[in-house]
């Protein structure tokens, strides 16, 4: 009622979206918080709400049911989702039956059956699917009261010679708006047309997994646990916004369905267990509650039956993938994708296909090797050992002796990192094998300019040094921002300005911050016991000592650290590759955490230790990581793949179970003692300095670099 008014949109085609965006931006440009509403709290409605919110409008979601995503989530899961959505500034109105879209020519508000109303100048309707069944009605086929061609389990309409599938079909009283049941319907219909006796599976596959407004939401099988006698296992952590529910059969042996909100990385494995009827482990709760340092509760993907569908986008089974390896001779993921199309859709099955590939190769007696790229038949660790034993110093020699071809953007930086770790070589020595950031000792940004980050150990800085940074930024017109690692980033430097900028920074007492390298970045600190009334130990002094100790050290990936003065953990040290936290009885050392896309808390390596012990463990831990991790593998995934996990790592580092402690100590001491600031090296050496210009044949600068103003500073002009 009233959906012909200006400001009311449906959400169906690209053109619809363009119109919504245009209209929404006009409203947002008015400058005041303009209210807009989305009708429908399902998958699409919530995505639409996020988009409307991103346009800058005050956003409301209106849902008829008493909870969000009523088909996929139970009450507790929906409740958690509602809180998360409200957390990003979208208001949620449940149990609201819309009576009227009110207003004159333009809509002004919504009126609900319960007498309440909601001001809204724009409305996006995303309230389910209206099947386009006009043709069926005209032809006299039976359609549902709210639309949809009624079909039986063979996809036959009321006329047995007419079939309907997909979103026009009404099956078991529902229009199924998901692609998986659509595929099954197509198969069933074709089978029947060809005279086979196919029918839909008894339980329609409504499994979904997606990142909804930045929150993982997944459900599969019998979500509500109503289709068979069963019991539910529920894990909820309101603080972290995680809810997991598994519905298992009464005997605890089969998985019947489940819901994951906030953390859904195990969805694929759970779906496989459910779909293939795999017997659950004796303690199925281990499938949703990970115990620290514990082994994965999931069996191997190799144990799945051949019929198990691994890639649901392209419906590729385990058998097909294994055959691609054993019969078609595929030896890489790329080859498997080419042969079977697996992984080419959403990519969610990639880890499983990778495991299958390795398993199948192993079964054929082929050694499975993680080589760095096509140019070397070696892993990073093997290359490390080769370079160390043969004492190689040049990329050209290593590839001539142990590889093939010219090298590439993968193996060159890997060897650059290895040379750095073995010979304490800086990035200026062999600049041609460095990634552009290391080649020019700065971070490349949009429009090809660079950002500059001087080291500020522990985040402690004098007023004089702050002024010096300010003066440099002012002189070279750089955009300045405080980083997450307690330092200052200066953006928008032209290539040819970099040596001049650094000349001044070095004169003011700064060194390279290695923000451009796969190297130690920062050791973040809280203010600690010198000032803080809760502080147990002097976290700033220790953070500075640790950062000075490891500055310039390169690794398979970037390394970040943190030191907190008490268990309140203001330095967020457990979100770092190593975190040191003060207690009444000394330091606790945590390792292998990170923030980013897949946050991990660092786990305890040793507790109640003094500073010297802490540094010794750190030396060994970092050197062990540098020597053994794969390219671009951070400490958390490195630990995850380590057989024996943190207990093994503790044995190696603390108890020296491999007898390599002394060697690790020596190697680390070599790196620490041979540190030099590579920017100082670059600025003082005319040959290196000459690399920093845009053209080899002209002193001109790149005319394509353009900036526009942004809050009294500047930003690159967008295309």
């Amino acid at each position: 009622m009233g959906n012909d008014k200006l400001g009311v949109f449906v959400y169906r085609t690209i053109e619809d979206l363009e119109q919504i965006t245009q209209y929404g931006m006009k409203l947002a440009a008015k400058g005041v918080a303009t209210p807009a509403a989305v009708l429908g709290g399902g998958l699409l409605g919530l995505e639409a709400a996020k988009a409307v919110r991103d346009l800058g409008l005050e956003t409301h979601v209106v849902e008829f049911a008493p909870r969000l995503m009523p088909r996929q989530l139970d009450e507790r899961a929906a409740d958690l989702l509602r809180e998360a959505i409200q957390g990003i500034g979208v208001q949620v109105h449940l149990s609201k039956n819309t009576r009227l879209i009110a207003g004159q020519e333009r809509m002004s508000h919504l009126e609900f059956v319960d007498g309440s109303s909601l001001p809204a100048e724009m409305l996006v309707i995303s309230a389910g699917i209206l099947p386009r069944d006009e043709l069926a009605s005209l032809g006299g086929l039976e359609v549902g009261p709210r639309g949809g061609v009624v079909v039986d389990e063979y996809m036959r309409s009321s006329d047995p010679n007419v079939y309907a599938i997909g979103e026009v079909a009404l099956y078991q009283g529902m229009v199924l708006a998901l692609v998986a049941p659509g595929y099954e319907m197509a198969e069933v219909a074709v089978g029947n047309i060809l005279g086979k006796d196919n029918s839909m599976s008894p339980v329609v596959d409504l499994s979904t997994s997606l990142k909804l407004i930045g929150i993982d939401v997944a459900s599969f099988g019998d979500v509500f646990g109503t289709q068979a006698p069963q019991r539910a296992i529920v894990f909820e952590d309101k603080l972290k916004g995680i809810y997991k529910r598994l519905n298992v059969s009464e005997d605890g042996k089969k998985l019947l369905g489940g819901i994951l909100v906030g953390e859904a990385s195990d969805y694929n494995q759970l779906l496989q267990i459910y779909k293939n009827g795999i017997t659950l482990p004796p303690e199925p709760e281990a499938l949703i509650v990970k115990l620290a340092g514990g082994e994965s509760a999931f069996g191997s993907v190799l144990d799945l039956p051949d019929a198990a569908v691994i890639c649901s986008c392209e419906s590729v089974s385990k058998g097909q993938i294994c055959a691609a390896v054993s019969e078609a001779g595929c030896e890489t993921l790329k080859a498997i994708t080419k042969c079977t199309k697996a992984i080419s859709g959403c990519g969610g099955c990639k880890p499983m296909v990778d495991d299958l590939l390795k398993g199948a190769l192993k079964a054929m007696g082929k050694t499975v090797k993680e080589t760095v790229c096509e140019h070397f038949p070696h892993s990073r660790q093997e290359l490390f050992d080769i370079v160390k034993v043969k004492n190689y110093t040049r990329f050209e020699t290593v590839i001539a002796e142990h590889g093939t071809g010219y090298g590439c953007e993968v193996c060159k930086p890997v060897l650059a990192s290895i040379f750095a770790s073995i010979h304490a070589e800086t990035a200026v020595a062999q600049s041609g094998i460095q990634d552009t950031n290391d080649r020019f000792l700065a971070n490349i940004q949009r429009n090809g300019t660079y950002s500059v980050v001087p080291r500020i150990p522990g985040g402690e800085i004098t007023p004089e040094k702050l002024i010096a940074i300010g003066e440099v930024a002012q002189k070279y017109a750089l955009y300045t921002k405080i980083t997450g690692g307690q330092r200052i980033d200066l953006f928008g430097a032209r290539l040819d300005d970099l040596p001049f900028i650094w000349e001044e920074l070095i004169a003011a007492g700064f060194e390279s911050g290695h923000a451009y390298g796969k190297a130690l970045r920062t050791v973040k600190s809280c203010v600690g016991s010198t000032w803080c009334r809760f502080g147990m130990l002097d976290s700033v002094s220790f953070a500075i000592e640790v950062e000075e100790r490891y500055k310039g050290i390169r690794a398979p990936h970037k390394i970040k650290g943190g030191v907190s003065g008490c268990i309140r953990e203001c330095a967020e040290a457990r979100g770092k590759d190593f975190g040191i936290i003060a207690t009444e009885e000394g330091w606790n050392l945590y390792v292998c955490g990170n923030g980013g896309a897949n946050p991990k808390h660092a786990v305890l390596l040793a507790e109640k230790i003094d500073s010297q012990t802490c540094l010794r463990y750190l030396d060994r831990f970092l050197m062990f990581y540098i020597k053994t991790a794969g390219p671009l593998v951070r400490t958390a995934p490195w630990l995850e793949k380590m057989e024996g996990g943190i207990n093994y790592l503790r044995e190696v580092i603390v108890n020296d179970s491999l007898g390599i402690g002394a060697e690790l100590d020596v190697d680390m001491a070599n790196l620490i003692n041979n540190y030099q600031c590579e920017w100082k090296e670059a600025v003082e050496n005319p040959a290196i300095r000459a690399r920093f210009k845009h053209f080899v044949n002209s002193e001109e600068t790149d005319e394509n670099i353009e900036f526009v103003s942004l809050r009294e500073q500047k930003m690159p002009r967008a295309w």
Partner: protein
Amino acid sequence: MQTLLSKYTPVTESEVKIWFKAGPIHAFPDNAGACVKYQDKQIAVFHFTAQGRWYACQNLCPHRMEMVLSRGLIGDEKGEPKVACPMHKRTFSLLTGENLNGDCGTIAVYPVKVSDGEVYIGFS
């Protein structure tokens, strides 16, 4: 944006009308790239020193329209010389200009010759 791209059209050796002198060999880094200015064009020139080969292409990466290809790492894919854009690691063949790991479209490549210690780029 399109006008920037349209400045760059591939040139084959037989179409060359002008051999532009870009500079002496030693001005170019070994086993890496550098950028040459020719009129209003930016050309990336790469010296595969170990193989004694030279290649040239537009400096403009068509993926995000940045003038950066000369700063990319060079190498080969199954023997075909390539450059990897430093921004997002799109790789391009230096023989054909083809995008080897995506659907970015083809970049313009130019012939290079070396004579009396000087590097020349061919334009039509």
